[in-house]
């Protein structure tokens, strides 16, 4: 099974390179598409879903989308494997928890993923490391065009691409960046910044946390409207605001180093210390501490840790990843296992950490 090969690698978007990757973790573009001849997923019968899945799977396999794709039958996947794909951001929680025929096609670098029978028949996603919205958009255009040669997407001249929810109609595009903003959180400027984003109709969401609660100072910024503007304009809308946020965060980091050097160094060192020595640790605390260590690495306060390592740990310390990494051992709890994994990792004897650094 290909999932096991994924366990020992990390997605390209986590490698911690690319423009402004000290602050921008990843750039993502997704398109919502539906086949004209089937009801939307929530209204579809079991047979409709199976037919939609088959038509899309077969036709996608028949066209070159610029990448070799592997298809995973999510409908027949064990729960832990579905959660594993969610943690890697290859499928959504909704897709994992849904019923009936559904699947995802992904490429080896985990940059491209095509979810079949999510809320819409097809959700195409391209994810790039660092700030690279235009790269992700150029890539997804190719995928969309190729598939469009062999299917009839539901389309109306005035409404554009027709989607299950009117909030996605038109371009069906969602453009987003995942940002790491610890200094804005520490200096308590984050709410002010986000209030100004809402005014220009961009959405802000915490990452990893259930609901809107942010975990580990990671935030996702995305466009809210999809109709009335071109895809290029919507990509640019998000692209325009990112440099502003980067600038705020950099200034906040400078301020912390300049004004509270000792304090910050202490916080970062303690975080690193706990991660290396804890005997039991929750997912939430791990995120929070990794976030602080990540900032410490970027501020030059911690020397011997690589950015790609921290990025990879953010994913690998999630519950399904831990469970897959430890294999059959069901005896210890997640929190104990997580602490053991972190200790082992930071001792430097971890072959997987070397593999992940490529």
């Amino acid at each position, binding site marked *: 099974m290909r999932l096991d090969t994924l366990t020992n690698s990390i997605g390209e978007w986590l490698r911690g390179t690319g423009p402004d990757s000290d602050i921008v973790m990843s750039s993502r573009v997704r398109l919502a598409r539906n086949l004209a*001849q089937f009801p*939307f997923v*929530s*209204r579809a019968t079991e047979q409709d879903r199976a037919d939609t899945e088959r038509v899309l799977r077969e036709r996608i396999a028949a066209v070159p989308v610029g990448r070799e794709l592997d298809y995973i039958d999510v409908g027949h996947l064990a729960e832990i494997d579905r959660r594993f794909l969610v943690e890697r951001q290859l499928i959504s929680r*909704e897709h994992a928890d849904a019923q009936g025929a559904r699947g995802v096609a992904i490429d080896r670098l985990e940059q491209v993923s095509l979810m079949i029978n999510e809320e819409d028949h097809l959700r195409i996603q391209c994810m790039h490391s660092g700030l690279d919205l235009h790269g992700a958009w150029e890539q997804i255009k190719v995928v969309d065009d190729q598939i469009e040669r062999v299917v009839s*997407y539901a389309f109306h001249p005035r409404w554009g691409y027709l989607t299950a929810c009117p909030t996605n109609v038109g*371009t069906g595009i969602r453009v987003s960046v995942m940002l790491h903003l610890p200094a804005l959180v520490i200096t308590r400027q984050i709410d002010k910044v986000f209030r100004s984003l809402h005014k220009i109709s961009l959405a802000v969401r915490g990452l990893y946390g259930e609901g809107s609660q942010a975990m580990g100072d990671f935030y996702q910024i995305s466009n809210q409207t999809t*109709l009335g503007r071109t895809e290029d304009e919507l990509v640019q809308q998000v692209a325009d605001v990112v440099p502003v946020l980067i600038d705020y965060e950099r200034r906040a980091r400078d301020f912390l180093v300049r004004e509270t050097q000792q304090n910050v160094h202490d916080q970062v060192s303690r975080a690193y210390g706990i991660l290396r020595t804890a005997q039991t640790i929750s997912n939430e605390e791990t995120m929070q501490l990794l976030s602080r260590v990540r900032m410490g690495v970027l501020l030059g306060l911690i020397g011997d840790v690589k950015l790609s390592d921290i990025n990879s740990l953010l994913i690998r310390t999630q519950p399904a990843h831990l469970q897959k990494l430890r294999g059959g051992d069901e005896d210890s709890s997640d929190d104990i296992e997580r602490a053991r994994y972190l200790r082992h990792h930071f001792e430097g004897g971890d072959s997987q950490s070397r593999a992940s650094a490529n």
Partner: protein
Amino acid sequence: MKCQQCDNPAVFHITELEAGNVREVHLCEEHARVYLNQSEGGEGGDSGDPGAGEGKGSKGGTLAGSLGVGQTAEDLAILDKRCCDMCGITFFEFRNQGRLGCPHDYLQFEKELDPLIANIHGATEHTGRRPSRPVPAGAGDAGSGTDGLTAIIGLRRGMKEAISREDYESAKDARDAIRAIEDAWMPPAAKAGEENA
């Protein structure tokens, strides 16, 4: 996805529109009932519900208002019973779930969706990319996009109903109509692919 008010799975996904903002509400069946009751200006005023105490019709009211219908319950009740000719979804079901049933709904409920979409997006006209392949010649009116192909959804439903009442003549007619539409709409590249397969 979990209910926003308890640990049960959310089965109702409601899209709320307030002052130009879209808010999605995800609730279990029980909480959805309380929520919707309250939205219609009903008795449900339990504390702890979203928007409790905002006054009568503060939720359903904004939706109905942006739907361009009168504020009366009767108007809404009539609208709620309307359904899509193709997939059969009622407007009530759409309002509850915040999800449409099929692409034809955009035409069937055009008048009602127009103000709703204007409210969400601040626009009602797509200006982005378009499929490069237009509606196939003879397959339908280009002005209604792919609606000619979506007609299959209604035919499929009709065929099933005909079979269940053992009206095989009608079922066969529906099947032939479906095949004719499928043939007319099959993208050339897909056709080539299937013939090679």
